[in-house]
């Protein structure tokens, strides 16, 4: 397993080209092209702002300006959720490669996660514009912004671990894809994206802290949105360590199932 993991480094050139290809190919033929990477989260933002700003105006003072708060959570959540959805089908749809080309299969889910990360990065300029023009909002200090890449790294490891497990299992159980979209809906509401974690009731708060994505999203929010020090840092680092082990576990499962892929997809 570790041998295979090390061999993966050899394939970084391939991973890089495939990510570029994925990003390029996704919006090929559409009029707006890669602007969809902006527009998609923007539209989602509009919907939630409308619902929670006008339809159900349940103002939480700590989460104002609400659209900005929302955006800090939705952008990374979209990365996470679409990575999982896409990677669950990636081995099946890439079956031709697995069957006909000598090819390390884990490249496919990894590329999926990375390509979605690129879309996440494309969305950041919009976030930047929001931060600049939001009324009465502070500009996050540089000392906190420096932690931003660390949060991304933790999310990357965590997402990749999930992607590896899901992609491998979906080869054997195609229904994971359908179950997954439902799970992700529940998961979305169980993650403090549309409401602040700090204002949740004590019991709920504790319950939510078992959700790894809570700590990722709260970290983004603390860095970009909330004033004051990055208090969630220690949670994030613990999650980072757990994610690393989880990644190894995910890779182990993937590696164990590897030889069955060529026959099953």
């Amino acid at each position, binding site marked *: 397993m570790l041998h295979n993991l090390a061999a993966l480094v050899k394939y970084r*050139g*391939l991973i890089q*080209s*495939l990510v570029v*290809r994925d990003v*390029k*190919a996704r919006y*090929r*033929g559409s009029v707006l092209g890669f602007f969809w990477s902006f527009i998609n989260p923007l539209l989602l933002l509009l919907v939630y702002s409308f619902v929670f700003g006008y339809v159900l105006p349940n103002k939480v003072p700590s989460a104002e300006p609400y659209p900005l708060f929302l955006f800090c959570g939705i952008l990374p959540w979209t990365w996470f959720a679409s990575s999982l959805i896409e990677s669950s089908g990636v081995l099946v749809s890439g079956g*031709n*490669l*697995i*069957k*006909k*080309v*000598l*090819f390390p299969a884990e490249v496919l889910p990894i590329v999926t996660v990375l390509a979605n990360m690129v879309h996440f990065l494309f969305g950041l300029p919009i976030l930047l514009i929001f931060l600049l023009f939001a009324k009465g909002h502070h500009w996050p200090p540089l000392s906190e912004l420096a932690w931003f890449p660390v949060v991304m790294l933790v999310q990357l490891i965590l997402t990749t671990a999930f992607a590896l497990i899901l992609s491998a299992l979906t080869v*054997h*159980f*195609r*229904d*994971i894809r359908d*179950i997954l979209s439902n799970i992700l809906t529940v998961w979305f509401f169980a993650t403090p994206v549309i409401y602040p974690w700090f204002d949740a009731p004590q019991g709920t708060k504790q319950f939510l802290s078992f959700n790894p994505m809570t700590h990722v999203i709260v970290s983004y929010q603390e860095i970009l949105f909330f004033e004051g020090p990055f208090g969630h840092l220690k949670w994030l680092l613990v999650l980072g360590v757990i994610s690393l082990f989880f990644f190894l576990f995910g890779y182990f499962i993937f590696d164990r199932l590897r*030889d069955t892929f*060529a*026959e099953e997809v």
Partner: protein
Amino acid sequence: MANAIELTNVSKVYRRYSRKRQFATLKSALLSRSLVRDLNPEDTFPAVQDVTFNLPTGRTLGVIGRNGSGKSTLLKLVAGITKPTTGSVKVNGRISALIELGAGFHPEISGRENVFINGIMLGLTKREITRRFDEIVEFAELKDFIDAPVKTYSSGMYMRLGFAVAIHVDPDVLLVDEVLAVGDEGFTHKCLDKFGEFKRRGKTILLVTHSLGLVERFCDEALWMDGGKKKGTGDPVRVVGAYITNVEKSEEATLAAADARAHGSAAAMSPDDPASAALPDHPIETANAPTDMFRATEGRWGSREIEITEVQLLGPDGTAGHVFHSGEPMTVRLQLRAPVAMEDFVLGVGIFNAEGLCCYGTNTSIEELKAVRIIGDAEAKFDIARLDLVEGTYKLDVAVHKQDGYPFDYHRLLYTFRVKSRTKDVGIYRPEHSWSFSESMKFSRTSSPGDLDDSH
């Protein structure tokens, strides 16, 4: 000499899931607690069984065998795409496998980008591809289209590009699975030239193909797979010869079975009622009319006042068979029976090709033979000194009827035989022929002498 490929007692067993497993989902697997059982199916299919062979570096091996004999699985095992169930596979050097050309091309992006990504997948670095890019494009003959998205390519263009990339990977071991049919004649020759160049440079090639001529011409060794097992190995000409003989035997068996079926259905028709036996478009009074001669519907009809009880095709050694070689003698032997003496009858034979075209037809009346009498059991032989037909499947008509066409027993296309030939000439009839040239003109043989020898 070091071995480039070493296979030791390699077996590959595919799981064959029962119908239940195919519809099984996670839910049902959990509910019936059959998860573990389903993942350990008892029903298995051995695709490759206990194959051992070594291929020294620089040699070219041709793998032949019928469909489903495990050739492609063997290739995938060597390529490392699937792992052997038991045994070990060792390959020394960089492998490039031409299994499916252009696998991994993304339809939406340009040929240029696909060349890079495909090249990287096959193990090249970006710099190596940049260096060879022009060569690849030129080889694929796609200069004008390289920047168009691959989805706009024709299938031939797609395959050519895939082939060009794969062949420029510069592997130490090249694995080729029946991919030479990817272009026009010119492109095929270019591919063969490229293989030849590989050979000269001391690379190892493993070729899975149905093109036996190619194996004989091009390979140093041949491996014959049959039912997942190694059936023969060694000198290509010898192995290919053994394989052809074996294929003929099984074709013989299939044709015999088909004949038996045809007779079975023909015999089911009532023999004494010509009207009901005749097919609607075969009115008996025109059974011998020229228009009917060319209509290719099989069947049997006639009054059976004289009956053809058995038809056999005899080869040069006098044994009955269904597979014959072009240029060799063939005899049609008819067993007849006439319960009462008859004086007005004609025997006829017709040979039709697979398209239903009459290749040859004659009868005793045409050949100015007048029947005198037949009573009881009789035998007639129609000797063909040289069966000068090109390769293909042919059907036989035999008939006995009155001078005026009234059918006693008409067997329409009920007997099938196959003509084999080592030369791939075309048409229907092959006249006995040879070439001769003046001094100022010279030819050399492109294939081993066995290729042109009909009787091998």
